[in-house]
């Protein structure tokens, strides 16, 4: 049967896709939590992370093919480089594209236009500066089958994605749940005005929220670029899917974004088992619409900022 013969293979590749969606989706959900704004330029935060890790790894690795512990080191370096690049662009975005509008109490629509404008500006700039062809991130490891689970081949690349993503997702969950920054984020999300009366510096919290989302998005850009290469249009579809995942899980809800990402990845992959690759998006978005008809606020519901 079409469904059963590839089941575990498709679940494994679905989980790998899902972890990437989850990392990107968190950027949308965190910003939505504090600003009730969809940061449509997040796709370019993702792309910036990809390019940052490309330049750093190319400089650091040269033409070497690392093994063992060196591979791990270069993966960590790539994640850090991607995260830093993403964080920097997210920070600047908030400063240049959103904060001036917020100061002037601009209507919501203005934020949306500003976001789309920033997105177009950034990806066209990247296309102009870095060329129209995909650039290959030098691979820190040799990809290949590592082990099989229920007959499904697990590649090195999938393991790298899963470990990096799980570490980052747990860290973010903890940061929002227990740190002072996390308290600030949750306070602003619940009621910005009251939070500011209580002494929370709203501007700083919003800025830091963008940075946290940027780190995750940028690191995802690195993990994605490892296999597909980095190019100016790389952010478009993955970010759209991640946004979908965030809505599916319940926008503003951190664990919802992770759940939505993993679910979307698996559903997309299993969906094509009995059909063709060209049906992939039809199936994925069909299911999204069905879920939202039954639960309009997403699977876990909109619980702005109240993550833990």
């Amino acid at each position, binding site marked *: 049967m079409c469904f059963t*013969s*590839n089941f575990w*293979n*498709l679940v494994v*590749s*679905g989980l*790998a*896709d899902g972890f990437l969606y989850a990392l990107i989706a968190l950027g949308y959900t965190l910003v939505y939590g504090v600003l009730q704004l969809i940061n449509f330029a997040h796709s370019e935060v993702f792309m910036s992370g990809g390019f940052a890790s490309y330049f750093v790894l190319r400089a650091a690795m040269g033409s070497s093919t690392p093994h063992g512990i060196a591979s791990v080191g270069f993966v960590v370096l790539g994640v850090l480089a991607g995260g830093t690049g993403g964080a920097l662009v997210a920070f600047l975005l908030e400063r240049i594209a959103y904060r001036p509008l917020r100061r002037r109490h601009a209507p919501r629509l203005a934020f949306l236009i500003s976001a789309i404008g920033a997105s177009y500006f950034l990806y066209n700039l990247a296309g102009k500066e870095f060329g*129209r*062809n*995909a650039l*290959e991130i030098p691979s820190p490891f040799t*990809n*290949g*089958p590592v082990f099989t689970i229920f007959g499904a*081949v697990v*590649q090195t*690349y999938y393991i790298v994605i899963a470990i990096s993503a799980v570490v980052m997702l747990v860290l973010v969950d903890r940061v929002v749940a227990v740190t002072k920054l996390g308290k600030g984020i949750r306070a602003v999300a619940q009621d910005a005005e009251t939070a500011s009366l209580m002494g929370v510096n709203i501007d700083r919290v919003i800025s830091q929220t963008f940075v946290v989302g940027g780190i995750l998005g940028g690191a995802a850009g690195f993990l*994605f670029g490892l*296999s*597909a*290469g980095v*190019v100016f*249009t*790389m952010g*478009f*579809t*993955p970010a759209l*899917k991640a946004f979908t995942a965030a809505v599916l899980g319940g926008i503003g809800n951190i664990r919802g974004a992770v759940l939505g990402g993993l679910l979307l*990845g698996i559903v*997309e*992959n299993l969906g*094509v*088992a009995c059909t*063709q*690759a*060209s049906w*992939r*998006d039809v199936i994925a978005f069909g299911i999204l619409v069905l879920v939202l008809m039954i639960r309009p606020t997403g699977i876990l519901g909109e619980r702005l900022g109240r993550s833990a």
Partner: protein
Amino acid sequence: MHLGIKRLGVPMAATVLGLTSLAGMATTAAQASSKPTYTIAYEGPLSGGNQQLGLNMKYAVQLAVNQANSGSTFGSLPFKLKFTPADDGGSATQSPTTAQGLIDNKSVVAVVGPAFSGATKAAEPSFAAAHLATVSPSATAPILADEGWKNFFRVVADDNAQGPADATYAVQKLKAKGIYTVDDASSYAVGLVSAFDAKATSLGAKITHQQAPGTTQCQAGTGNVQEYGALATQVQQTHDPVTFYAGYYCDFALFAKALRAAGYTGQLMSDDGSLDPHYVSQAGTSVAAKTVLSCACTNLGNSSADKAFSSGFKKLAGFPVGTYSAEAYDAANTIISTLKKLGNKSISRAALVTALHKAVYPGLTKRVHFLSNGNIAGSTVYEYQVQNGKIVELGPVTQLVG
């Protein structure tokens, strides 16, 4: 409007040509005979994302015209030639305007181009109405030859030649009993893959076909890079010894990587859309190794004529010959040799069209001779292979399977 041109075009061209020769007489009064001047135009993308393809051809045409004027290729000619480039951006919307500009320039007797199939399809009705010969070095859409345009010629085989040739190679040379075919949903790839599937089936191979839309990552469609993981799993399940991809190098590189990561060890094949060094650099040398790519075009060899063209091109253009440079050179020289055959009488556009239908010219890439629908006679498809990170020509399919 088109009718007006049809009726007036030829006499007006003759008048203008007559005037040109009078002017020539005035300035070179000392010379015994005055020579008429004919303009050969080039139409293709000279700006935008695909401009390199256009430039590859433009300089080749310019070189042919320069050489003919200096007498180095055809000896002494009874006319002088001029060259004019026209930019259509490779786009079907811009192309008719560009074409009209060339039609209105009465000294233009023939056009090398248009370069792209879409642009050709859009401009050809106007060219046909003006009886202006167009010889494309690169427009491969099969439909172009079916429209009844008398003035349409091309020096490259159409896509109907490539798909069956690839299928023959896969079944008879690689001995594949099962072949997995994938197309990127572009009109080029859909046509190519259906021709491939039909031929391979008739040769006894079992075909499994799937469509995977080109990705946004590659600016080639609406697809998502992640589609290739699941697709590779499905291909791997079939254990087909050959996978044929119809599409362009960027997406093919992503698909090839996914296939190898999924543990697929079969032979990879693709078409002229993937015949680009970027395929090797984006897929990686080890993934791309042994991939077979096809094209109805051939590398220049080591003959003295080939070398003279390469060095002359580089001197004029400032960069080495590229895809379809040699085809454009052959197209221009076919036109020039036909003009020469028509002699020193004043040559009309329509007369040139008629003469081109009978033309035989030994070009660099092939013996140029046109069928009545404008297609090139005898369409040879060549296979290439990635070896040690370089794309190497294996030879014509007919010889490889023979």
